[in-house]
């Protein structure tokens, strides 16, 4: 063994007495002939003895007598922190939840008005369509127009379960229109109201 680098690499194994006999002999022989490696070995040995002393110190490390009690107190504190949020946080959370719920309701309503009802036309409307050859114009109603629709004599309101559909048997006249002749010339249109 004539490489100082090899000796350096074997230092740890030599310390732990893990070198094979022949390698250990070559290792010792090199140390006997190389002052630099011999000095390094002395340093390594001193360092290892220092490590051993520190390990012994570690086992004697003083831990406060109330250490475990303090750990338990921290645990209790962390349990408290994992409980439901404080009031200010909870109120914010509730407000957010309410806002989210409103958004979901709006989305459902928009879906129902735009597409849902078209694809899920109730049987009563289908029957009405089948019996009436006039084209149907869907119209969206809101809370302001719905009461007006109820009060209009031309409109027939049909109830179907939870949904209500209003359908006119003839064209609704615009509020601005006044000439009867003009009305008679206009093609009749059947309007379907969803709300």
């Amino acid at each position, binding site marked *: 063994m004539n490489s100082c680098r090899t000796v350096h690499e074997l230092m740890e194994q030599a310390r732990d007495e893990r070198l094979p006999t022949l390698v250990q002999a070559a290792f010792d022989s090199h140390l006997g002939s190389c002052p630099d490696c011999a000095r390094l070995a002395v340093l390594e040995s*001193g360092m290892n003895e220092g490590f051993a002393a520190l390990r012994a110190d*570690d086992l004697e490390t003083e831990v406060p007598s109330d250490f475990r009690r303090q750990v338990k107190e*921290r645990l209790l504190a962390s349990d408290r922190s994992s409980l439901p949020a404080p009031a200010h946080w909870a109120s914010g959370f509730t407000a957010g939840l309410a806002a989210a719920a409103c958004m979901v309701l709006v989305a459902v309503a928009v879906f129902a008005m735009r597409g849902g009802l078209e694809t899920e036309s109730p049987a009563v409307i289908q029957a009405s369509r089948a019996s009436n050859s006039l084209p149907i114009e869907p119209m969206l109603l809101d809370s302001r127009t719905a009461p007006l629709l109820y009060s209009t004599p031309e409109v027939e309101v049909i109830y179907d379960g939870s949904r209500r559909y209003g359908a006119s048997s003839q064209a609704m006249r615009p509020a601005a229109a006044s000439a009867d002749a003009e009305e008679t010339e206009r093609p009749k249109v059947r309007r379907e109201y969803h709300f």
Partner: protein
Amino acid sequence: MTARQQGPVSTGLSAGGTDVSDQQLMERVCRGEAAAFDTIVKRYERRIVAYLIRIVGEREEALDCSQEVFVRVYTKAQLYDPSSPFKAWLYRIATNAGLDALRKRRRRRWTSLDGTLFKVTADNPAAGSASPAALSSEPPAPAGNAETDVLASERTQLVRRAIGTLPEKYRTAVVLRDLQELSYQDIAGVLDCSIGTVKSRVNRARNLLREKLAAHAGPAGFASPAGEVP
């Protein structure tokens, strides 16, 4: 959780339940048995405190971190994989807690109350590291005046101080290997890196230690009087 079957654990810390393996204790902790958790704390409190003193350098801070470590052991018990060594898992938690403490200290030092930046001085070459002066848990000098005892004590102090001046990643590696005596594989798990990286860091740390100690070592080794580690 299924506890890995293994023999009794001998940790050198005989406080409570040495005939029960760590895995079995953790299984009980998961079931909410306070006594099992108490045994875990008893078994490892000294080692964890000593380890964190080496990492963070200040006893009070190390005690604070140690408590946090055991709180995490309890609250994260369900995350422990019984097929892996408990010791590696525990030291991983401890290492993270120690490094977190160092980072917080570094931030505190860089932002002083009057807004001036902390100045890195020769006495404190690495802000946030465990300064030699902070490693104040040195045991008293041995009784008696035998020259060998004095030299041995002096050597231990030198090694202690030299470890405190190592860069964080080297200090952690060498402390886990040479003081806590974890295997390279366990250290790789603790530090979340490859075994090759661990070996490289440990080797680099030892080389740095040798360089630091060489300045104080006389021809016969560590025979020079006490002095600051360069």
